[in-house]
């Protein structure tokens, strides 16, 4: 018994595609429904079911012909999703720490050194810059004229650079803080905030790597 040509073709297409699961499944379901519609149209024209399915698949195009445009769209969606996340997460982290300091729940300990103050200023600037870059890239994802791979790669790099710069500066700041850092870390609220920041930074790195890996998939890599 041979497999249904439509089911086999859709499964072959799905196997080569990578990207956001919900969008991928939606695109595959839509293509599947379209193939069934096409086969029904051929049947209505007098072809037997199996021949009609073969003709529908032939009209659809080979996996090598259609997969690159499906993958481009999935890459674009990944870029948009990551850009939206970065645009929210970076400013929220900054606002969260500012709120924590201003609430009085966490005390700074002895007066901060000049190095710590400079690093804190740098951290604020980098965070705002990364947040603005993410917003700008999010806007670019709405343009059809910009290749999705370029935008998505820029989003991945923005997240990775942001996580490295913010994470590295935070570590340097706490090391330079010396006794002030030790005092701060005796406070449960401060510990919770540090743990939350580490988890968020790890998630940003994960999302950035995932986004960059998707961009490395070249359309020419699909089986033709």
């Amino acid at each position, binding site marked *: 018994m041979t497999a249904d040509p439509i089911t086999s073709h859709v499964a072959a*297409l799905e196997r080569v595609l990578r990207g956001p699961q919900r*969008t991928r499944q*939606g*695109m595959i*379901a*839509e*293509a599947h*429904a*379209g193939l*069934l*519609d*096409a086969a029904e*149209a051929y049947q209505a024209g007098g072809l037997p079911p199996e021949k009609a399915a073969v003709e529908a698949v032939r*009209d*659809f*195009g*080979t996996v090598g*012909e*259609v997969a690159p*445009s*499906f993958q*481009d*769209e999935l890459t*674009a*969606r990944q870029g*948009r999703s990551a850009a939206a996340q970065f645009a929210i997460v970076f400013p929220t982290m900054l606002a969260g720490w500012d709120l924590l300091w201003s609430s009085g729940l966490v005390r700074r300990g002895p007066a901060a050194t000049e190095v710590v103050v400079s690093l804190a200023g740098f951290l604020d600037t980098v965070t705002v810059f990364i947040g603005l870059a993410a917003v700008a890239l999010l806007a670019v*994802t*709405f*343009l*059809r004229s910009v290749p999705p791979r370029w935008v998505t790669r820029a989003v991945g790099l923005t997240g990775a650079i942001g996580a490295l710069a913010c994470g590295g500066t935070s570590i340097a700041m706490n090391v330079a803080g010396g006794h002030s850092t030790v005092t701060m870390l005796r406070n449960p609220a401060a510990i919770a905030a540090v743990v939350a920041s580490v988890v968020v930074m790890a998630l940003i790195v994960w999302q950035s790597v995932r986004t960059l890996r998707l961009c490395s998939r070249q359309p020419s890599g699909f089986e033709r």
Partner: protein
Amino acid sequence: MRPAAVHGHLDGLILAVLEDGPLHGYAIIEALQARSGGALDLPTGTVYPALRRLERSTLLSGSWSTVGGRERRTYTLTRAGRHALATQRAEWSEFTAVVEAVLRPATGTS
């Protein structure tokens, strides 16, 4: 007509067939073939990503619905899509007029 000749114009063609009202993916493919008199010979599988691209650019809005007992994604031209279609039509008219003027055999020259 070869797929390469359609490349770059597919978005405009899709916007045009959706001008009269919402359609699902296969109905759009049928409308493209009907309006071209069957001359458009592109892999139908390339239409679905194009629809998603137009939706991402807010020129179309898409939603799932059950049509004829099957789950289908139906697309509607948005206000931005109508504007883009009008722009594309104007650009195409200008382009074809220029090309036609150049291609037309010269007459009355000595």
